[in-house]
């Protein structure tokens, strides 16, 4: 490790912008971005499954609030949601004295909340669409077997809807990665925050942003590859039988 750093340092000796110092900003930014996106996606996914089922419920008082939630969070820019959550909470009288402030004081949790709520809304709609598109025959077959609504949901509808939703959800994951670039407006040093810092410090927009664009490309490539693999595994039954 020591030798690697020395080697890297010598390679960067005549580079005034990409020093070890700025590379470490990018490195920390990468960690922050991946943490933020990964956590919000996992939390959003966990929330979206029950919400998607509820979104198609027969009872109005279950369906309507979920519809409203999705409508509001898909209908407003993520940047506005982030501003409202980060700067908005401080206008709640006396919040600084409660335990909530411990987690809301730093920008990470407010950003995580905004991102999670946003991606959960989109994912809910994706899953809801996939559930609605379940083939009639599958449902009728399940009924014929005497499955209860609950069992049918668990064994038939959710697994098949999940697979159908996979390509669309892969898109949502990539969108979320790119949307996370706005985290730097609430002082988080994510990848874009690091790029903006380097840009502002060295007045080098091309170097700072091209480099960060390349990192985003690599991340996107990894996500694409992961979803290609998942689709190959889980959607194998959709492939035409090869001769």
């Amino acid at each position, binding site marked *: 490790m020591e030798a690697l750093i020395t080697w890297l340092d010598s390679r960067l000796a005549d580079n005034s912008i990409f020093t070890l110092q700025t590379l470490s900003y990018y490195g920390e930014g990468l960690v922050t971005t991946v943490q933020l996106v990964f956590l919000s996606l996992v939390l959003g996914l966990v929330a979206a499954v029950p919400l998607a089922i509820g979104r198609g419920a027969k009872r109005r008082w279950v369906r309507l609030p979920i519809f409203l939630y999705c409508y509001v969070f898909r209908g407003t820019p993520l940047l506005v949601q982030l501003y409202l959550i980060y700067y908005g909470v401080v206008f709640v009288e006396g919040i600084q004295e409660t335990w909530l402030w411990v987690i809301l004081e730093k920008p990470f949790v407010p950003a995580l909340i905004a991102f999670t709520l946003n991606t959960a809304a989109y994912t809910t709609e994706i899953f809801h669409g996939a559930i609605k598109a379940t083939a009639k025959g599958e449902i009728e077959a399940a009924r014929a077997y005497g499955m209860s609504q609950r069992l049918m949901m668990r064994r038939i509808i959710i697994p098949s809807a999940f697979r159908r939703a996979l390509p669309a959800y892969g898109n949502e994951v990539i969108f979320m990665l790119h949307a996370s670039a706005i985290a730097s407006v609430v002082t988080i040093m994510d990848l874009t925050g690091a790029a*903006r810092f380097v840009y502002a*410090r060295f007045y080098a927009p091309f170097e700072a942003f091209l480099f960060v664009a390349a990192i985003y490309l690599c991340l996107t490539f990894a996500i694409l590859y992961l979803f290609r693999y998942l689709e190959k595994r889980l959607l194998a039954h959709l492939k035409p039988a090869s001769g």
Partner: protein
Amino acid sequence: MTLRTTLSLGVLGVAMIVGTANAEVRDIRIAVDVPYEPMEYRTPEGELTGFDIDLGNALCAEIGIQCEWVVQGWDGIIPGLMARKYDAIMSSMTINEQRREQVLFSDPYITPPSAWFAPADVEIGTPSEETLEGMTIGVQRGTLQDNYVTDMYGDVADVNRYATADDMVLDMDSGRLDAVFLDFPIGKSTLIDSEAGDYKVVGEMITEPKEYFGEGFGIAFRQRDQELADAFNEALAALQEDGTYDEIFEEYFGEQE
């Protein structure tokens, strides 16, 4: 008698030099990033005003050209100059070596110090690595204060970087920041004067080391516009001589020490 003759000769001389410059210097557009009180901001009626605006207008009048102000965000203010969207930047821009590689500066027209500001109830001694350890410090991204704090205290304190001074004040109001490091005049007008008693200045005014704080604020031009810079330097010298400069200074900063 002799003094007066010398003075009038001097003024005549300046007028002649300015007169010659006049023939070569065209009307220009000057970029400014608002608000940055009291250097540049808008009146409630929406008109641009501030030290930079008044001094800039006086300089243009002295040279004898028309100047148009263009409002431009700080992040893109130097690229905009390069892209010829305007011909000069007069927006509290500190002269330093990194910027000098990109732009041509006039002589410094003011040298404001930076200072630490903190909520009145936060106990901070003279700012140092020990006293700031573990604190959250606010700076405006890409400013010299950002560079200074990042290099001096980046390892011991959390540095939050904001796009605008407004966001920073909001976060200080909410208790997210323990201290901010700002240009003194801006901090004084936004934190001390307008929010009486909530904030205090901590420690001394800071103007050293020069590698961070530069030589003061300068007007930035494109490297090739040497004549334009010369014209502004001559006009600045003339205004400093005839007292116009002091009048404008006192209007925004009170009595000059």
